[in-house]
């Protein structure tokens, strides 16, 4: 055989700089993992510290009794729990139906530009600081009159509306076009198609959005400071015409007090609130999974 054999070339040999790129890749993976762990760690930190500080003061009395008269020990935050429930109930009753109707309008009836404008407006409303919303409702309803559960409910509703509406819009858009076409091709009117075909298909996702909206407003403090913070701290109030005790403002009030047992109660109230929000988030997530599997197939 003539001539030198060609220099042996290994086709699998690494390219120049490959080792450095591999190291950078591992470093980036590491950074991303640390960031994720940090996020989870912060959540755990908050939950665990509230748990440790709040659990000692939690007992059946705390959850079922109203605050003890001034100077006495014992009592609980039952009136705040009930008041918060009523405020959230009012807010949701006002905001959820309107939000779903807005979503139906933009996804079924509005033209593309109108839908885009409404989406934009909702996003801006979503970004309004809640203290501004509180001041707005204060100026509109409370000023010149008095604080009330209605004012608090309206303030919370304004905050809840864009959350539920945007979520509902996304869910309704996920309903496949083919289902609407099938309904229309059968000779059904548009509103029938929406009511009997689109809404039931999107139901799981709509509920998720509503639950997330509730979870968000459950802890809003600023708007309630303006609309429902001057209340009788001792009795149970169920009349929305008066200012209603509620958990966030109660936490605030208790933490301002000089008494250490009040501080312990503040932690305990915070624990109740965070437990409620966590529970809602889990419920929302399970509805989300259910609706996603249904939309898929």
């Amino acid at each position, binding site marked *: 055989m003539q001539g030198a054999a060609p220099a042996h070339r290994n086709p699998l040999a690494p390219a120049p700089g490959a080792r450095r790129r591999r190291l950078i890749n591992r470093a980036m993976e590491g950074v991303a993992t640390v960031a994720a762990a940090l996020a989870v760690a912060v959540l755990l930190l908050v939950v665990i510290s509230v748990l440790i500080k709040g659990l000692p003061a939690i007992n059946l009395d705390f959850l079922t009794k109203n605050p003890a008269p001034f100077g006495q020990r014992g009592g609980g935050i039952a009136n705040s729990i009930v008041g918060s429930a009523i405020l959230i109930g009012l807010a949701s009753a006002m905001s959820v139906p309107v939000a779903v109707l807005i979503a139906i309008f933009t996804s079924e009836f509005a033209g*593309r530009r109108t839908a885009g404008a409404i989406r934009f407006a909702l996003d801006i409303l979503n970004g309004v600081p809640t203290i501004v919303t509180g001041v707005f409702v204060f100026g509109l309803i409370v000023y010149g009159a008095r604080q009330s559960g209605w004012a608090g409910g309206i303030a919370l509703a304004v905050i809840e509306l864009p959350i539920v509406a945007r979520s509902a819009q996304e869910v309704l858009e996920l309903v496949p076009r083919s*289902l609407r076409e099938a309904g229309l*091709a059968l*000779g*059904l009117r548009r509103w029938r198609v929406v009511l009997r075909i689109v809404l039931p*298909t999107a139901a799981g996702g709509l509920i998720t959005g509503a639950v997330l909206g509730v979870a968000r407003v459950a802890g809003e403090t600023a708007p309630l400071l303006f609309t429902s913070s001057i209340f009788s701290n001792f009795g149970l109030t169920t009349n929305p015409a008066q200012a209603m005790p509620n958990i966030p403002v109660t936490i605030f009030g208790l933490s301002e007090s000089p008494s250490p047992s009040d501080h312990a109660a503040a932690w305990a109230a915070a624990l109740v609130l965070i437990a409620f929000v966590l529970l809602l988030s889990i419920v929302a997530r399970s509805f989300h999974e259910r609706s996603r599997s*249904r939309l898929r*197939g």
Partner: protein
Amino acid sequence: MELDPIASRGESQRDLARAPADAADGAGPRRGCSVTVEQLRAYYGEQQVLKGIDITFPANEVTAIIGPSGCGKSTLVRCINRMHEEVPGARAEGRVLLDTEDVYAPKVDVTAVRRAIGMVFQRPNPFPTMSIFDNVAAGLKLAGIRGERMRQRVHEALRAVGLWEEVKDRLGASGAGLSGGQQQRLCIARTIAVEPEVVLMDEPCSALDPIATLRIEELIDELKARYTIVIVTHNMQQAARVANSTAFMLDGELIEHAPTNDIFTTPRDERTERYVTGKFG
């Protein structure tokens, strides 16, 4: 018999499957309507996709529409039952006569048009939140036909599409649990339950396996005794199997419309000949 929680309005499975009191035989032949398209032009915004189509679909016959992708065959059938105008920015001009009535006449109610001209889509689309019974009944219940008459129509429709034996024991189960071929037959049952005059089919078998396809082609052959059928297909063998006549479209125009045998063996237009022999498309 315990109640199935998903069954329609709480009725038990047995009630749903019960033979209706006046089980008249509604499965005999029935004269359908012809469809005549005159100078149909269709637009998506500024773009014209149908350039003046004139064609007649004879009553009680199967007409296939073939042509390369984008030639406008789907748009043509969607103009017949006025589904085309549901797309934002889309419009149609011209006349579409159901026997002698123009579906585009100004006073015509578009939902009445769609009840008389039904449509089966390419991908089966049963309503996921409804049971099998409710799916077939959807066009009826929500249009005011209820009770015994509704039950009778649902049973007939399921029998007509050959699904009855397979689902009669689980009419309350969700429609999503059926196979692709069964789902498409369910959609066909849903369409014929409202007893339209015409059934439009937009590539009804393209998402199905060959065996399911064959069953649906047999079904089409049976259905033409009662309805006028227009089927869009990209499968020329399918057209040869099911259609009495075939129309060839290209670039928004109707090139040729003839008995199926003639189109495939002795096409008159050179473009038709090139398409059916596979030279393009």
